[in-house]
């Protein structure tokens, strides 16, 4: 189950710069920790985040272990046409979690 919270305006003026905020549940295991038995805990972080606006990438990020658990990111885009924003987070185990948000541009 994807546990993500996306915050975007539902409606915007054409040409307006809108803020997008996205947060997802993920441990972001650094790979630098040891468990109670002293064994290294393998790294498992979301290493890639992408945001597409009607299937065109408008923002992406590469993450390293210094990103906080349950990663939060806020960025912006210019509202162009009514459409769908798609978010994708890819972790070290290859799991891709997705979420979408619709926007109406007037």
């Amino acid at each position, binding site marked *: *189950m994807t*546990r*993500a*919270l996306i*915050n975007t305006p539902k409606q915007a003026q054409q040409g307006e710069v809108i803020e997008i*905020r996205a*947060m*997802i*549940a993920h*441990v*972001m295991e650094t790979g630098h920790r040891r468990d109670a038995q002293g064994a290294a805990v393998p790294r498992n972080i979301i290493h890639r985040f992408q945001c597409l606006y009607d299937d065109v990438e408008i923002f992406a990020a590469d993450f390293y272990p210094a990103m*906080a*658990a*349950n990663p*939060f990111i806020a960025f912006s885009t210019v509202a162009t046409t009514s459409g769908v924003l798609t978010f994708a987070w890819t972790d070290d185990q290859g799991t891709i979690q997705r979420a979408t948000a619709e926007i109406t541009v007037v």
Partner: protein
Amino acid sequence: MALKHGLAAAVLALLGAGGLVAQEKRSGLDYMTPETRAMQEDDMSNPGMLFIAEGEGLWQAPAGAANIACSGCHGTAAQSMRGTATRYPAIEESTRRPIDLAGRINLCRQTQQKAQAFPAESPELLALTAYVAHQSRGMPIAPPADDRLTPYRKSGRDLFERRLGQLGLSCAACHEGHAGQRLGGSIIPQAHPTAYPLYRLEWQTLGSLQRRLRNCMTGMRAEPFAHGAPELIALEAYLMSRATGLPIETPGVRP
């Protein structure tokens, strides 16, 4: 404001003789930096809200041999669970002993859903407990006027005031004697359990009040009581009665 301070000063003068400094009741929220406060107060930046979303999903998911969801009996949580968290721990009628909110939820899971209890601190139990407690956000803590709770609150208070562990400290020594002062990098709060389960930055996840109490015991170099131990329930019952009137914040954020 001036009146409030005047009153506080008067109470202080009255209790001054007792050695403890009486303070206005304040949530741990009031002692945090503006940045950590802002993280809690904006739902879109509060990581605890991710767990509330999961709790909502669990609330609606049929489970157990009875294959029934919490919502199947309780309907909309916003109505049926509004105010519930303000009055826990409460006496559980079948055992006539106090039970905390997580324990009450697990009871329904076992007796109503006919499912296995969730383990202490499991993500599911934390998410459901946080979701139920969230329905009381903003409502004042209002422990039940139930005489059967009195002995448990009293034993919780005794524990709070007793010296524990190798450092010979009591909970009260820090949380009443020195609340508002710095301990290393942290400010000592008054220890009001207003916001549980909460997202602690130190944990990087959601955790229960019992986990928090166990952490303080570790800090005192005392052997922490086991999860679910009667001592922890008694401490919870005392701390909730001590926090009467403060608003529920779940899901809180703390350093």
